[in-house]
């Protein structure tokens, strides 16, 4: 079985769901080895074992996380040189893609970004990507010349969160400590402070199974409490359209669509969002879509599985109350 490296996304040892998805996918394609960068590995170990990491390369040196992206790419490049894995999987987050891109240059390989699926076909890794806001599906491969290659290079793939249902499959998660001597050019962008905005107990937007979003129709920052109340009843993350974010009603981190996040949850509930193409580009691949909007002509209704034409301030609180009643 060929080795597949999975870069672990975690917050101080709390492993993110997307990593469990990547481990699940890696088990289909070969033998997964997790790569854990940062402190608190012991906290993460059980989860990584449960989801099938045979090995975990652990790099705890503080300098690896003290600079923007580049040190992580250098560490992965060293692991690729030493272990010659068949593929490296990272989450298609902003930082994950940057790491993947820099790693591809260092290893003279190619990078396939925003994959929603990954398969092996005759030894060639084929990534599935959803483009033009979900209206087209393409399959792509890493090539040498113009020929898709089997194992000549380590293939680097950034996979979208929510692309693979995570399934346990226990393995040993044998710890292998690794380190890398960073070059000077990996230490040029120093992180001097990390500033967190309070997000409460809600799930992270790109990882959430359910997303409830508000748009221009919400009308003010205060009234987003209506959206949040429904989200909390559903255990959902809260999203916002660009119009709502530009108006200062909700933070940029929550923006769904072009120039914001791409989400692909099981359920997406759009409240007071007209569904401009820029928004659709970020949510069109959601499995089930619901919209509540006053305007029966709003383009969002072209996408929905279920739509309510009406005032969101009547419909949404009533739905929130009804869910509470049924619990």
């Amino acid at each position, binding site marked *: 079985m060929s080795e597949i490296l999975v870069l672990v996304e975690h917050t101080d040892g709390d492993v993110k769901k997307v990593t469990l998805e990547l481990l699940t996918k890696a088990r289909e394609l070969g033998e997964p080895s997790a790569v854990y960068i940062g402190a608190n590995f012991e906290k993460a170990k059980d989860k990584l074992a449960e989801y099938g990491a045979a090995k975990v390369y652990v790099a705890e040196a503080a300098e690896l996380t003290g600079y923007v*992206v580049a040190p992580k790419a250098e560490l992965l490049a060293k692991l690729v040189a030493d272990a010659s894995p068949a593929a490296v999987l990272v989450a298609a987050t902003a930082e994950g893609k940057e790491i993947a891109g820099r790693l591809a240059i260092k290893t003279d390989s190619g990078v396939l970004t925003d994959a929603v699926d990954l398969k092996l076909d005759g030894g060639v890794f084929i990534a599935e990507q959803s483009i033009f806001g979900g209206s087209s599906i393409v399959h792509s491969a890493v090539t040498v010349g113009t020929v898709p290659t089997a194992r000549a290079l380590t293939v680097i793939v950034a996979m979208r969160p929510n692309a693979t249902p995570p399934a346990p499959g226990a393995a040993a998660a044998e710890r292998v400590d690794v380190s890398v001597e960073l070059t000077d050019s990996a230490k040029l962008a120093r992180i001097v402070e990390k500033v967190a905005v309070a997000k409460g107990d809600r799930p992270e937007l790109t990882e959430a199974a359910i997303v409830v979003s508000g748009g221009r129709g919400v009308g003010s920052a205060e009234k987003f409490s209506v959206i949040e109340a429904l989200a909390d009843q559903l255990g959902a993350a809260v999203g916002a359209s660009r119009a709502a974010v530009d108006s200062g009603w909700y933070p940029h981190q929550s923006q769904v669509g072009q120039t914001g996040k791409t989400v692909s949850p099981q359920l997406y509930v759009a409240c007071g969002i007209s569904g401009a193409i820029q928004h659709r580009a970020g949510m069109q691949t959601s499995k089930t879509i619901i919209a509540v909007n006053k305007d029966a002509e709003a383009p969002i209704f072209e996408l929905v599985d279920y739509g309510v034409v009406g005032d969101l301030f009547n419909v949404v609180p009533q739905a929130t109350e009804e869910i509470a009643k049924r619990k």
Partner: protein
Amino acid sequence: MKIVVLVKQVPDTAADKRLDPDTLAVDRGAVDGLINEMDEFAIEEALQLVAEHGGEVTVLSMGPEDATDAYKKALQMGADKAVFLTDPALAGSDALATSYALAQVLKTLEFDLLILGSEASDARTSLVPALLAERLGLPQLSFAAKVEVDGSAIKINRLTDYGHDVVEATLPAVVSVVEKINEPRYPSFKGIMAAKKKPVDVLDLAAASIDAPLVGWAGSRTKVVDAVVAPPRAKGTIVTDEGNGGVELVEFLASKKFV
């Protein structure tokens, strides 16, 4: 301070984009092109920094011969000159090959800051800022929501999932900006007229010392092997709220096992 701003001409997001059936690349001839929206924020940031610290702004663009609207818009907004890299051999370049070609040009330009938008609206990979930082050996200051320059020191707020990181570096540096950073100006009539007289340096592969085998279809390490139009979503149920819309919505959620 010398600033280079990288801009890209992209198909209009609102247009019905499709793939060229022969090349499986975006059929750019089929839709109108315009400057990538995020790039306008990069130009604005450069113009504001130059207004504060002095210096000049050069706009760099790469694309097909007729993709001139993007850099022209930058000149109209106030950039001083343009460099346009265009060569048929560049067609088909993926993000990595594109970054190689751009890096070759950037190595010949003197700059303190390279500013670009953090995402192009067509491919949306957000890879190029990191790739250029890697190729040029410069600090990567990407997803900047705020930029402060003090002498040779630069400090940015880098947006993250949890909020932001404050990141410091020494110039020269690569900065990519998000669209919350400023309010791009509209070109004035005077700006539009002045832009026509501004110098544009047009480069091909040879002029930019770009190795042909490293760009285009053959020079790219990735290839689209097939493409299909996604099946349309099944038509949904649309109801009008008669006072019971919220309860009915929950009925639907229950039927799908969400509650």
